[in-house]
């Protein structure tokens, strides 16, 4: 692996045979170097967390912690679930928070009430969420995609209500306590262990989704997104494909929800709001709709933005005046405002999101000195 070969002209974009076309990792050298870079960053991570500095740059204002990193990983999992539906299926869903709640409830039922071990409870939550998604998709996907927004809105209302009732009946005001998780003899009790578990799960999910997208079903889903009529004419059962996508998306999101509540160790109904569902939409728009890399980037920014906003707003009080105090005392609204502005600006100016930016950087550097 030499540096010039990294920047060789074909840059993994041009292929000469079908076997090259069919590879999961198109350009092995690029794939290897990205993997190496990732491992180096991973090894560097504890130092960053420990010293709160990145390459000598003080980042203590981000309050970057293992907790944040893990929440970020869970958020990325949820975003991938949504992206399957929105990015690859062309369907907008506001049900992400609802499926988080579904996952949390199934995990509570299996893991807390029936004492299933942690991996079984999480898997059960994912499967249960997938089944519920499949059931709900039947009326929602029969007609135009717009109806899915409505049905998922209804699902959001229902899930919040059901979680509240469930919590009231069995656990009371304090919320649902999730027992300390562990896989076999290994207890998942620290941020580091959670981080490793979540990274493994995330890598598995990304590999799984990538593979699925290259299979018959995945390509059919993309065809349906791009032109429903043409896809139907080619013999794809549009309704079935959409239903499968919805069930699969619900599977991932519910699993992420179960992990989320196990990580927090306690969950109550007010976690699963419509605002949570909207932040997932914001994440995939910011990162790039229909891109797995976009989910990762969007998830990272989503997790890092609130601390940045809170630093910026606390500075605003130094400006003085009523506007300054209004800004510093309403950090939540400012954070919403920034998110809303990001959604609007990104959609209008850079519809491909951060992933599109990465793609164009990659195109320019990999084909250098030629212009791509």
């Amino acid at each position, binding site marked *: 692996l030499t540096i010039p070969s990294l920047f060789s002209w074909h840059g993994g974009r041009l292929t000469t045979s079908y076997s090259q076309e069919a590879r999961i990792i198109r350009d092995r050298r690029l794939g290897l170097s990205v993997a190496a870079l990732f491992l180096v960053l991973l090894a560097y991570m504890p130092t960053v967390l420990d010293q709160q500095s990145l390459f000598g740059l003080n980042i203590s204002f981000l309050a970057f912690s293992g907790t944040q990193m893990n929440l970020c990983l869970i958020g990325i999992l949820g975003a991938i679930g949504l992206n399957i539906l929105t990015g690859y299926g062309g369907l907008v869903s506001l049900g992400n928070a609802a499926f988080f709640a579904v996952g949390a409830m199934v995990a509570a039922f299996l893991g807390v009430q029936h004492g299933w071990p942690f991996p079984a409870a999480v898997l059960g939550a994912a499967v249960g969420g997938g089944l519920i998604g499949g059931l709900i998709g039947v009326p929602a996907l*029969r007609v135009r995609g717009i109806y899915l927004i409505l049905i998922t809105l209804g699902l959001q*209302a229902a899930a919040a209500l059901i979680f509240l009732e469930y919590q009231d009946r069995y656990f009371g005001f304090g919320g649902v306590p999730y027992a300390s998780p562990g896989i076999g003899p290994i207890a998942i009790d620290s941020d580091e262990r959670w981080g490793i578990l979540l990274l493994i799960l995330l890598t598995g999910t990304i590999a799984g989704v990538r593979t699925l997208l290259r299979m018959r079903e995945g390509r059919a889903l993309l065809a349906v997104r791009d032109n429903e009529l043409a896809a139907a004419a080619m013999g794809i059962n549009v309704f079935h494909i959409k239903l499968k996508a919805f069930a699969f998306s619900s599977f991932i999101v519910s699993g992420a929800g179960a992990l989320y509540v196990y990580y927090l160790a306690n969950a109550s109904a007010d976690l699963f709001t419509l605002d949570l569902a909207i932040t997932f939409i914001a994440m995939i728009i910011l990162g790039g709709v229909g891109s797995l890399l976009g989910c990762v980037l969007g998830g990272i920014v989503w997790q890092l933005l609130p601390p940045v906003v809170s630093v910026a707003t606390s500075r605003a009080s130094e400006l003085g005046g009523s506007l300054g105090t209004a800004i510093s005392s309403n950090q939540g609204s400012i954070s919403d405002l920034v998110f*809303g502005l990001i959604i609007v600006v990104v959609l209008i100016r850079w519809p491909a999101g951060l992933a599109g930016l990465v793609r164009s950087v990659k195109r320019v550097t990999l084909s250098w000195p030629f212009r791509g």
Partner: protein
Amino acid sequence: MHTLIQVTIIGLGVGCVYGLVSLGFVVLFKSTGVFNFAQGSFVLMGAYFMVTCVNDFHLAIGVAAVVVLVASLLVGALVHQLVIKRMTGQPMLPVVMLTIGLTLIIGAILSLFYGSQDYYVRSSLSSRNASFAGFYVPVSLIVVVVSSIAATAVFGLLFRNTRVGLHMRATAEDHEAAVVVGINVDMVQMVAWALSAALAAAGGILLANIETVNSTLSDIGLLSFPAAVIGGLTSIPGAIVGGLLVGVVELLGQTYVSSSAGDVTVYIVLIVILIIRPFGLLGSREVNRV
């Protein structure tokens, strides 16, 4: 039985407001094809503006209502000119997500100015009650019903008898054909946004007279979507019928199921209707089914 009729009466009153808001939603969907998620934010905006006009500027209710309506017409037009116009020709999906972003922005700006506390419009209407044959009917509710009917009638006439209305109907029918015959489609869409925002704000104005005003009022907007879909998504009388139905069903759910089950009951009815009549109660059958 007495409770049932009483609840239905109140539900019909509230349903008028839903009807207005979902009428705004339908008008926009019909003439621009945009699913406006921000409809609830316009409701909230109307209610908050009403609070400011009545409590701080001491305007009479009628004058304040007109001022707020004009203001929201402007806001609607501004939203179209600043944001939506740049997305013309894009598929539906990004535009829906854009309106979700707008919801965040409008909500955040309103909460910067109004915070999270409750407001009450000092309305002369709110306290009096009338009673018909043993049923209790708040005067404010009668005013709400009458104003909704008036607003719907005015809107129907506008849509049917004016040049702008004709252009809007033409754009709704066939966007490209409307461009070809020389209709200023951009203008038509701006008018549609302005009217839609004003109708939502009208809902907010009426709600401000019968309810406490706080940030949860924007949830009304969320219930106007099922109202529009139940009515048929592109049908103007359907929006009103859907709104009334949603109002009644919500209150029945709150009364007979659980105090927090109102919206869930509405969505259950929505799902049932979608299964039986996917094109809505008064909608046309030409929904693109797959």
